[in-house]
C-alpha cells in the first residue's frame, strides 16, 4: 500500500512552495528564486517531504508593492501547467525597517494537458517579519489559505471544505548575493487526514506539516 500512498501524496500541491514575498521589494528591484519541498508523509515507514519544485520571479512595481510569479516544475513533469501569481503589499513597516507586515493575495492556476482540465485556487496570505543582524536576516511567520471555488467533487459528491488554511514559520538567511530560506508549514488544520489513502506526518489528527527550502537572488538594483 505504500506505493499507492505515494501516488496520492504526490498530487498534494497545495502550499507547494516557500513564501514568494516576505518583505516587498523596492521599486524596480527584480528577484529570481527557486523552491524545493512539500508536505511530509510517511513512506515505507520513513518521513519524507514531497519533492515539489518551482522557480519564481518577482518585480517591485512600486515601493511596497511587488508582483511575483512562479512556475511549478514538478507539476510540469506530470503534464500539468501550474503557475502562481501574487502581489506582496506592504501593510506596515516600522520606521527602522526592522518589523513589518505583508499582505499577499494571489492565485494558483492549473491546467492539465492530459484531460484539458483547468482549476483556479485563489490564495490569501498575511506575513509578519522581523529583520535582524548586520546581514538583515529575516524571521517570519504568517497565516494563509487556499480558497476552493468548485463545490462538486468526483461522482457529484459535495466538497465540504471551502478553505485549505496553513500557518507558516520560516527564516531567510541573507548572503552577499543569494538569500536562502527554510520554512515549515502546518497545512489543512481544518481537514481530517484520517481514513485517506496517504499517511501524512503531523502532530495532530488533522492536516499535515510541510518543509521547504528556497533560494532567491536580487537582480539589478541592489
Amino acid at each position, binding site marked *: *500500500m*505504500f*506505493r*499507492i500512498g*505515494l*501516488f*496520492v*501524496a*504526490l*498530487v*498534494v*500541491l*497545495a502550499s507547494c512552495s516557500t513564501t514568494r514575498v516576505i518583505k516587498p521589494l523596492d521599486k524596480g528591484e527584480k528577484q529570481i528564486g527557486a523552491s524545493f519541498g512539500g508536505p511530509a508523509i510517511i513512506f515505507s515507514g520513513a518521513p519524507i517531504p514531497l519533492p515539489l519544485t518551482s522557480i519564481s520571479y518577482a518585480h517591485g512595481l512600486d515601493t511596497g508593492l511587488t508582483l511575483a510569479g512562479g*512556475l511549478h516544475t514538478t507539476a*510540469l*513533469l*506530470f*503534464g*500539468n*501547467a501550474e*503557475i502562481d501569481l501574487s502581489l506582496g503589499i506592504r501593510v506596515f513597516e516600522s520606521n527602522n525597517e526592522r518589523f513589518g507586515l505583508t499582505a499577499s493575495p494571489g492565485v494558483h492556476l*492549473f*491546467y*492539465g*494537458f*492530459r*484531460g484539458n*482540465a483547468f*482549476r483556479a*485556487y485563489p490564495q490569501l496570505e498575511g506575513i509578519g517579519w522581523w529583520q535582524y543582524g548586520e546581514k538583515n536576516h529575516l524571521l517570519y511567520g504568517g497565516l494563509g489559505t*487556499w480558497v*476552493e471555488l*468548485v463545490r*462538486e*467533487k*468526483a*461522482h457529484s*459528491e459535495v*466538497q465540504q*471544505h471551502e478553505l*485549505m488554511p496553513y500557518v507558516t514559520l520560516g527564516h531567510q538567511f541573507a548572503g552577499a548575493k543569494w538569500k536562502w530560506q527554510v520554512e515549515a508549514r502546518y497545512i*489543512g488544520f481544518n*481537514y481530517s487526514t*484520517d*481514513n*485517506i*489513502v*496517504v499517511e501524512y506526518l503531523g502532530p495532530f489528527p488533522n492536516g499535515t506539516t510541510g518543509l521547504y527550502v528556497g533560494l532567491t537572488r536580487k537582480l539589478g538594483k541592489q
Partner: protein
Amino acid sequence: MRRLITLMAIACLSTSCLKLDSLLYSPYTDIESYALDDYEGRQEIEVGAEYAIPESKQHLFTLSSDPEGDAKEIWALYIGDISRIATDTVILYLHGNTGHLDLYWTRIKLLANAGGSNRFGVMAIDYRGFGLSEGPPTEEGLYEDADAAMKWLKENGLSDDRLVVYGYSLGSAPATEITANPRTMRPSKLMLEAPFASDEVMVQDGSGLTMPGDYFSSLQIDNADEIKKVNVPFFWIHGTADSFLSIETHGEVVYKNYEGIYSEAHRVEGGEHSDVPAVMGLAPYLDVVLEFIER
C-alpha cells in the same frame, strides 16, 4: 500567455510526462514458487485448521492472457474439483494491489469453505506483474487477466448463472469492469469488499481539493461509474474504520450508485481495510457470503 502554455506543453511532451499509474500496484515478485500453506510471509488474515484445503483440491497452473497482442503467461489457482466445474458454482476471487496469491491464500481458503468444505469452487489469479505472472501490471491487463480466468472456467464447463465474481480492494476494479461490460462470461452476482470509487476520489481525498484525477494518472478505473451498468445482484462489505479506502468517500459512493435489481450492504464496525472477515468473525462473514450466493 499562449507562448508560455505552448512552452509548457513542449516541455511536458519532451519529458514524456511522468505518470503515477504504476504506483497503483504493489506486487511482490521475489518468489520462485507459490507456497500457499507453507507461506511464512504476512497473511491478510489468519484462519484455523478447520478451513484447511486438501492438497488434492489445490490446482496451480498458468493461463495465457492476451490483451491486443500483449500476451503474458499468468498464474492461476483453482480450489475444488476441476471435473465438477460443469456443475459447481464458482467464485472468481480478484485480489488487492499488494503482494501475490500467497498473501491472499487464507482469504481464498475461507471462501472455499463457505457453506461447508469445497461447497463452491474458488478461482484466483495473479495479475500480470504479480508473483510469478509475467509482465508489468497495467489497467487493461487487470481486465484481460480476469477475462482469461473466465475463458478457462468456461472451457471447463462453467455457465454464466454459476459464476460469482468477488473483488477485494484493487480487485474491485476488474470485478466491476467485467461485470458491467461482460466479455467472455456474464457473471450472475458481484461481490465487492472494500472497493475504491475511482483514482479521482483518491486524489481528492489526498489533496483535500477538487483536483481532477487525470492531472496525475491516465487510469480509467471508475468503479463508482461502472457500477451503474451492473444489473446483477450486488453484495458490498466494508470496514467502518478503513484508513486506506474510506468507507464514506469510496465504498458508500459505489454502493449508492448501484441501480440494479438487488443489493445488500455490510458495514463492519471497526473493520480496517484488510481485516473485515476477522473483525466481523469468520463464521458470520461466511454466513453472509453464503446467504448472498444462495439467494
